């Protein structure tokens, strides 16, 4: 029986094994805490960035829907609207209006240096005409540099937190095990 084995061999080797188990479980527990905390943070930060970008997207959408419902060609006032909204936020790379088939109808000029392709996120806001048929989308492409910076900083901090937590927990568990083992069953 397992319990009898414990009683019979509370040798040093076994205590080391116990501490090993404690270390593994501690890594699992603190690691999962860090993992979950990071992803909660990530979704909050990304949601904030997306939400921030949907403000200019909404005003471009209002303008574009109005122009399309008048049958006015999109170039002109709408283009000016696009440029204005883009310059309002330095993180916006491009604002475009695409039709229901995905073709680009209008887009801002390439005034800004394009960031590397992996770092551009998009917000799509669908447009509908006045009898609720889809017209296309307003697309805001942005480089969420501040969000990415925050994520990187969080990763650094979490690495430290989890490492410290793991070591601390392991030491605490080790101390506990040593205490319990010493106060172990009276020898027969």
């Amino acid at each position, binding site marked *: 029986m397992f*319990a009898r084995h414990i009683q019979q061999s509370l040798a040093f080797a076994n205590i080391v094994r116990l501490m090993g188990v404690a270390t593994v479980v501690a890594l*699992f527990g603190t690691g999962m805490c860090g993992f979950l905390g990071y992803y909660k943070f990530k979704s909050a*930060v990304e949601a904030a960035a997306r939400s921030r970008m949907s403000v200019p997207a909404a005003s471009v959408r209002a303008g574009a829907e109005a122009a399309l419902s008048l049958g006015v060609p999109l170039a002109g006032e709408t283009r000016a609207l696009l440029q204005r909204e883009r310059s309002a936020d330095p993180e916006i790379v491009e604002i475009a209006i695409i039709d229901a088939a995905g073709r680009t109808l209008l887009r801002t000029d390439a005034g800004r240096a394009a960031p590397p392709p992996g770092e551009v996120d998009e917000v799509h806001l669908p447009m509908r005409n006045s009898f609720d048929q889809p017209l296309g989308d307003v697309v805001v492409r942005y480089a969420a540099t501040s969000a990415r910076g925050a994520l990187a900083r969080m990763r650094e901090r979490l690495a430290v937190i989890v490492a410290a937590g793991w070591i601390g927990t392991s030491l605490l*568990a080790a101390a*506990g095990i040593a205490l319990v083992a010493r106060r172990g069953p009276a020898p027969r």
Partner: protein
Amino acid sequence: MSAARTEPQRLQSRLVATILAAVMLGMLGVTWATQHALQDLLRPELQRKAGVVGGSVGELVGKALDHGLELPELAGVAAHLDAVRREHPELAWIALRDDAGAVLFSSGRDDGTRGVAVPVVHLGRPVGAVETQVSDAWIRHILLEAALDLGVVFVVAIFLTRELLHTFVGAGAAASTGTADGAPVLARLRLPLFLFMLAEESTRAFLPGFAKALAPAGSALSPDLLAALPIVAFMLVVALGQPVLATWSERAGARRILLRGALLGVAGSAGAALAAHVGTFIAWRGLCGLGYGMVFVAGQGLVLQHTTAAGRTRGFALFVGAIMAAAVCGPPIGGMLAEHLGPRAGFGLAAAFAAAAWLAARGLPADGSHASPAPPAPAPRDYARVFAQGRFLWVTALAAVPAKLVLAGSVFYLVPLYVAAAGASPSVAGRAMMLYAVALVLVLPRATHWVERGVPLARMVGAGLCVSALGGFALLAGDGVLPVYLVTALLGLGQGLSIAAQSSLLSQVCAAEIAAHGSGPAFGAYRLLERLGNASGPVVAGAFAMLAGPSSAFVAMAALVLACGLSFLLLARRAAP
């Protein structure tokens, strides 16, 4: 658990408790520190957004001013600010101030923290400002949402600790004492078995959803049915491969088969992770099933080889224990991983666990001579005699098969699909499946105790079946995620009652056949039918889901099981010895 706990058992509990107490403190500490980091790093991002929102309110106000209105006489401002706060719940306060700084209109409560102020400009001059404040309480709530997940992690840690303790300390201790009752092999078997089962269980929470997503858009079969096929393929391979694999394992050596099975599990999971089409995915899952069958059969073979008849029960208890521990730990971990990193990462993790199982299995002793001679292969005639036995059919068809049907159909197949359809993440499905396993683990010892005490077996089996059905009816009450937890919890409870009594009942019912031909034919046929029930579960549930949606499918499955349970009890009067 016996009434009097011995000193060593108390010591064991104390050690587990010590480790877990330390882990809990550690987790709380890490969470506390994470909360601080989150507050520091999230606040600036939220303030940027608050500034943009304030700016858009300011632009709207500017538009009104451009049309000749004046700031103090604006109408409906408070209502608009309320609407903005509803859309952006992290804002505690928005206010419109005039150029003297006085608050003209506001929404929410000013808690004195520094806000972001965006000026309102009219004809080139600033005439006021829109001020927004980010809510501290909202930021605090973010991590609170993770509290349930952290609780789940802790429960997993409990089972993980127990498993690891059993494995490492048991193995070491046994090696040092050198007892000859096969304990060292059994202990060394525990870890690879646990890890391999973990690999399988961790995919449960997201597998049907992944299969459904892979289904091509214009296929003839409904995506719900296609999502059932990977589970069916797996279960069928396990069911039909069993007899073949058993003989192969005996001939080639259980350790070898175990190792190869683990490798197949690695390959199958890796292939599943990379599958681009539902057909290939089903094929990879079939391969996983083959690996699972091999590991399972080889494991059983090892237990048989290295235990005498007396210790066999304990040996199989170890087997079941490892599987149950994996069933508790696997689904929630897989679910959480799939939620944040995607289902393919989940299959990658499963492959990693299977690889770890392979590594751990290498520590098993080489296949040598058998401790006990292999039993003679049963003849088909013996099987026929078993099937002809009316009471055998009574136990299998009305109790064992429906139990597996509802397990595979409702838990493995419907829960993830329903959860996904309700818009929740795979973590929720993982939690529900964990609840099933925890309920089962908690009930099983008590139920076994009742069986030993002499509670009528048929009554236990029937009652267990009926209880397990009750959960499904919870979905009649309402939608949402909460009923699913009830489904799985009651299922675990009922199945615990039922399983504890079933094999004993079967031994009783087929006593004559077992006496004549050994337990091979009876239990072999029983397990085969059980596994076929496993394979049919998703198909039946899938058909219900396709016709009436996942909610109704739960209810239909529950009704089916309830009907079987009631019929079982009714027939018990006639059939029970």
